[in-house]
């Protein structure tokens, strides 16, 4: 009855209509990244968790707990805490990804994207790239604040950069977990609760703020296998900062660089495909 509706795109021209070349994908991601950065520029308070919070945390932790927490194996608390502060701030800032995506899904704009011949995953990838850029800003703020309050490293520039890169890579992988949460949230508000329910315990039950040696046994085991601990210990090791976890027998504490890379790759490998599946499901009717 409907000869007009043929399964036409068999010919080359039609296939070209469908395919997205690598260059087009990159352009789409750049466009979406720019859009998200414009959003941030409109509401700069969105950036408070990567600018004001790190400064506050750095000052609070160093002056409040600095004198009270002895570091097993010696060393200054300021040198010890900086990697931990970096991991803490970057971990909790991934909440922004969850909230941002949940917000997008509630805006009419998502229907516009869905009728455009764009490479769809650019919605997610653009978001994650924008969040990585704000994470870089966060890292810079932490480093500058740290230097101002006396953090020092004797490591060479390459090792210093490698330490930051490891933590940023971890934060990037974690932002895909946050994306999964945002894509399953009924509202931006419920996406925000992810931060308090998951991210804060994840960041605090670790060696980031305090050495794990003083924790009860079960908690210490959890902390030693927490990816945040591996990432923090890896940065401390690369920066030649005090790293009491080096004396702990758990495998990730003995091999923190390998462990943090493995965690990040694993999280990314699971969360990224899952997020694109959730995205497809959320946008199907």
């Amino acid at each position, binding site marked *: 009855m409907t000869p007009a509706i*043929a399964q036409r795109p068999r010919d080359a021209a039609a296939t070209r*209509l469908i395919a997205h070349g690598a260059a087009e994908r990159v352009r789409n991601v750049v466009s979406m990244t720019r859009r998200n950065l414009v*959003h941030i520029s409109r509401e700069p308070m969105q950036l408070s968790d990567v600018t004001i919070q790190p400064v506050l945390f750095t000052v609070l932790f160093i002056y409040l707990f600095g004198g009270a927490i002895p570091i097993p194996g010696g060393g200054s608390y300021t040198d010890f805490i900086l990697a931990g502060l970096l991991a803490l701030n970057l971990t909790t800032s991934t909440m922004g990804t969850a909230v941002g995506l949940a917000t997008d899904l509630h*805006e*009419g704009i998502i229907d*516009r994207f869905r009728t455009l*011949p764009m490479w769809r995953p650019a919605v997610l990838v653009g978001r994650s790239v924008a969040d990585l850029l704000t994470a870089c800003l966060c890292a810079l703020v932490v480093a500058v604040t740290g230097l101002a309050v006396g953090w020092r490293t004797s490591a060479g520039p390459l090792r210093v950069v490698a330490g930051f890169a490891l933590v940023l890579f971890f934060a990037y992988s974690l932002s895909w977990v946050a994306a999964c949460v945002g894509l399953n949230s009924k509202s931006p508000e419920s996406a925000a609760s992810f931060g308090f329910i998951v991210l804060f315990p994840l960041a605090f039950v670790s060696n980031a703020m305090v050495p794990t040696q003083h924790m009860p046994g079960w908690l210490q085991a959890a902390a030693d296998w927490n990816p945040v601990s591996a990432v923090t210990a890896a940065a401390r090791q690369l920066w030649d900062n005090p790293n009491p976890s080096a004396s702990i027998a758990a495998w990730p504490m003995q091999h923190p660089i390998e462990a943090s890379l493995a965690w990040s790759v694993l999280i990314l490998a699971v969360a990224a495909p899952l997020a694109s599946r959730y995205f497809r499901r*959320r946008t199907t009717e």
Partner: protein
Amino acid sequence: MADTMIEADGLFKSYGETRALAGVSFSVPAGSVLGLLGPNGAGKTTAVRILTTLARPDAGQAGVAGIDVLAHPAAVRRLIGVAAQDATLDGLLTGRQNLVLVGELSGMRTGQARTRAAGLLELFELADAADRVVKGYSGGMRRRLDLAASLLTRPPVLFLDEPTTGLDPVSRQRVWEVIRDLTGSGVTLLLTTQYLDEADALADRIVVVNHGQVIADGTPRELKERSRSAHVEVTLAEPGPEAAGVIAPLVGGQVSVSAHGLRLSAAVDSAPGLATALVRALDQAGMLVDNIEVRQPSLDDVFFALTGAQIPGDNNGSGAKGTSAGHAGPGASAAERESEGAQP
């Protein structure tokens, strides 16, 4: 026959318990305008969502430019422009940034997108507001920007879902002009509307939907002729008791006579030459006719005749359009959104 550019064939779609479409079929020949006309909740938006790859039907087929929408949605997206019923814009970007973003995501180069955006902002009289954040736009400005976004890549097939809902009369005329210009350039257009005069003014063919089904299909003229709702009114110079008997066979129905016997009126099929025939018959019977008026049915009459119900709130014909509660009320459109399930 011209090539079919848009085709819906036996579309069924339910959202939960709500049946939005119950077997809707229509087709739009290349270069023509189809008006999909119906009240809130009739299924217009659902049909558009299916044809624009946003929703999948439970049954039936959809085609755009001969491409199966369900099998090859990505190919269809390269050919269509869509202005949805709820303006699909980014509130935190400026009008210009919105258009450039849409252009880039449609495969245009940034420079090309900027040039085109500037032209469209001018066309829709948004140039002054172009660099303001869309969140601060009025409803009418948003709709015009949304229309501009749908035209950005000069798509050969356009879907405009209630393009003038919520617009003031001046903006509405402006949008009509733009649509007329477009159709002159060979674009195929599917337009949904609740406004009968809009369908009458813009569409080559009209498909009337109600409760998820097509209840009529034809040119505006055919639809008017199909309904038996033309009206004739004769005023005599002097009361003529036998006048009703004279014209009854000609109008083929009941003739009502006014109290003084001066004025006669009847519902008629709009037939050519009816007025002449009536005057001649009355003249031969020795009666003088002061005035005779044959009123063509409006599409409102047609819609009433077809659905047995008036457009909600639109109760005084063509004079009330754009002002009645059923059109502009945010509550009404929210109800349709809900019943048609804008979000799964």
